[in-house]
C-alpha cells in the first residue's frame, strides 16, 4: 500500500506529543494507520516499528491485545452493538439479531461478522458508555441512541444517509 502524501508528516506530528518516549506514539500511530487503510497490515506493523525504532513485535503485541484494532479489512459500514448489561436489559441481543438478519451477517458473539455482500460488518462490543439511552450502537464514529426503534435500525443500516 502506498502512503498518502502527508502521512509521514502526520505521524511525526503525533510522535512530537511524546517528548519523553516515542514508544508512547504506538497506539495513536496504529489508530492513524487503521483510519487510513481500514485495518492494520503487516506493512503497517513494520512501518510503525521502523518509525519508532522498535521491533515489530512491540507493535504487533498491541494490535492483538486491543479490541479496536483489526488485521483484516471489514465491510464498508461498521456497526458496533453494545452487549453489556444495561443495553442487554434494553434488548441489545434482539437488536443484534435483527441487524444480522437484515444484512445476512451470521454472528453470535464478540468479534466482527461481515455480510455476504461485504457491505456491513456487525460487531458485539462491550459497554459504549451511554447506558441511559440503551440499547446503543455505533455506526463508524457515530453513536446511535435507543438503537432498536424502527427508525434507528434503519439509521444503523444507513438508510437515509
Amino acid at each position, binding site marked *: 500500500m502506498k502512503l498518502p502524501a502527508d502521512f509521514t508528516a502526520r505521524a511525526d506530528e503525533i510522535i512530537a506529543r511524546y517528548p519523553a518516549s516515542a514508544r508512547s506514539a504506538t497506539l495513536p500511530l496504529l489508530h492513524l494507520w487503521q483510519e487510513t487503510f481500514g485495518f492494520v497490515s503487516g506493512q503497517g506493523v513494520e512501518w510503525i516499528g521502523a518509525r519508532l525504532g522498535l521491533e515489530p513485535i512491540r507493535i504487533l503485541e498491541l494490535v492483538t491485545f*486491543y*479490541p479496536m484494532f483489526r488485521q483484516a479489512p471489514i465491510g464498508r459500514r461498521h456497526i458496533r452493538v453494545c452487549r453489556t*448489561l444495561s443495553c*442487554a436489559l434494553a434488548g441489545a441481543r434482539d437488536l443484534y439479531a435483527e441487524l444480522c438478519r437484515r444484512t445476512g451477517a451470521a454472528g453470535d458473539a464478540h468479534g466482527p461478522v461481515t455480510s455476504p455482500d461485504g457491505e456491513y460488518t456487525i460487531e458485539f462490543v462491550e459497554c459504549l458508555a451511554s*447506558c441511559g*439511552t440503551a440499547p446503543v450502537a455505533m455506526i463508524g464514529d457515530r453513536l446511535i441512541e435507543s438503537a432498536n426503534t424502527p427508525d434507528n435500525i434503519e439509521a444503523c443500516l444507513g438508510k437515509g444517509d
Partner: protein
Amino acid sequence: MPIPERRLILRHADEPGYSPDIGSYLKHGGYDALRKALASSPDAIATEVKASGLRGRGGAGFSCGLKWSFIPKNNTKPVYLICNADESEPGTFKDRQIIHKDPHQLLEGMAITAYAIGSRLAYIYIRGEFPEGARILERAIAEARAASFLGKDILGSGFGLDIHVHRGAGAYICGEETGLIESLEGKRPYPRIKPPYFPAVLGLYMCPTVVNNVETLCNVKHIVGMGGAEYARLGRPNNTGTRILCVSGDVRRPGYYEFEVGAVTIGQLIHDVCGGVRDGNRLKAIIPGGSSAKVLRAGDTFAIRRRKADGTVEAISLGLEDIPLDFDSLADAGSMAGSGGIIVMDHTRDMVEALANINEFYAHESCGQCTPCREGSLWMKKITARMLSGRGRASDPDLLASVANNIAGRTICAFGEACAWPTQSFVEKFRDEFDARATAPAKEVPRAA
C-alpha cells in the same frame, strides 16, 4: 414530588444555547478560577483541595488532596498529570456528558491541577470509543492555547502547560491507573504492582504522576472558585460535593442526574427522580456503582452508620430504598458508590442471566496478567453460560462462589475484586435462583445474555 437537582459540574451542560466552544464558556465565567489559581501559590491550591474533602469520582473514592500530596517533596523529575477519561465501567456515562458538552471545564480543572502539582505536560487518556469526544477536546485545547489558557506562558504567569489527547483502543483495563500508564507508554496495559509503583512516585516514565478522573478534575475548578471550606459544605461530612448519578436499567426515566452527595436515597432516586420502576413492576435489585459493585437486594435490611450533627456516629437499620447515595453508606451496605453508575433491575429479571452478562464482560476484559483473574473470570463466564443453556450442575452455585473467592485479593490490580464481587454477591443474595437454574432446562431465549 420531584427532588431538585444540585448541578455544579453539569450546571450549563444542557442549558439552551450553551455550546462546547470557548466563547460560550467565557461568557459563563470560564477560566476565572484559573486566573484566581495562578494568582495564588500551588501549595495554597493543594490546601484548598484538601480542605474540600474531595474524593475521586472514578471508582475508588480516594481523597484527591491526599493523592496529590504523595508526590515526593524533594522530587527533581518531571511531574505528569493524566486525566482518566477511559470511561468504561458498565452503567457509567457521565464523563461523556462533560467532554461533549463542557470540555473547557475539564481543561480548566486540569490547568489548575497541573499548576498545583507542578506539571508542565498532561495527557487526557480518552477511551477509543469516544472519537467525537476526542475531536471536541482537540478543538477545545486549540482554542484554549490561542487564548493563552494553555501553552508556554499561561496568562503571562510564567506557568506553562501542554495537554495532549491520547486515545485508547477498547480495553477496559486501561481505566485502572497503572494499566493506563503502561498503555500511555505504548505497551500492553498490564497493571503494575503497588508497592512500589504508586503513580505519585513511579508513574508515567517512572516519574511522579497524578491520575484523576474527568469529574474529579472538574470539581477542582469549582473548589478553587468557591473555596475548599465552602465546597465542603456541599454533601455530607467525608462525602462532600456533588455527584453525577447515572441511572440505567428498569426505570421510567433513565439518565444522568447531579445531586449533593448523599442528598437522595436509592428510593428517592428511583421513584421521585427517575419516575419509578418501568411498567409498574417491582424493584428487585440495584447495582449501585458500576457493574463491579456488589448487587443490593430489595427487601433486605442494611446496617448503616450515620454521622450526627454533633460528630458522633450512630448505627441505624435501613431498607434498600432508604440508603443515602454516598460513599460511606454504600460501603456500609456492603457495596460501593464506585463510578456513580446505578443499574436498576425489576422483578421480571433473571439474576442468572444478568450475572452471565456481567461475567462475559469481565472474561473479555481481563488483561490476562494474573492467573486467578485470567482463568477465574473465564470459568465464571463458562459456568453461568452453561447454567443458562440447561447444562448446569447442582454444584455450580458453590463452584461459582469458590472461583470468585479465589480471585479476590489474589491479583495485582483491583480488576480481581471487580470481577469477583458480582459473582460473590449475586450467588449469595439470589441463591435460590441460582440453585433452581443450576439443574433447570434451558429457557428458549435468554433475554440478557
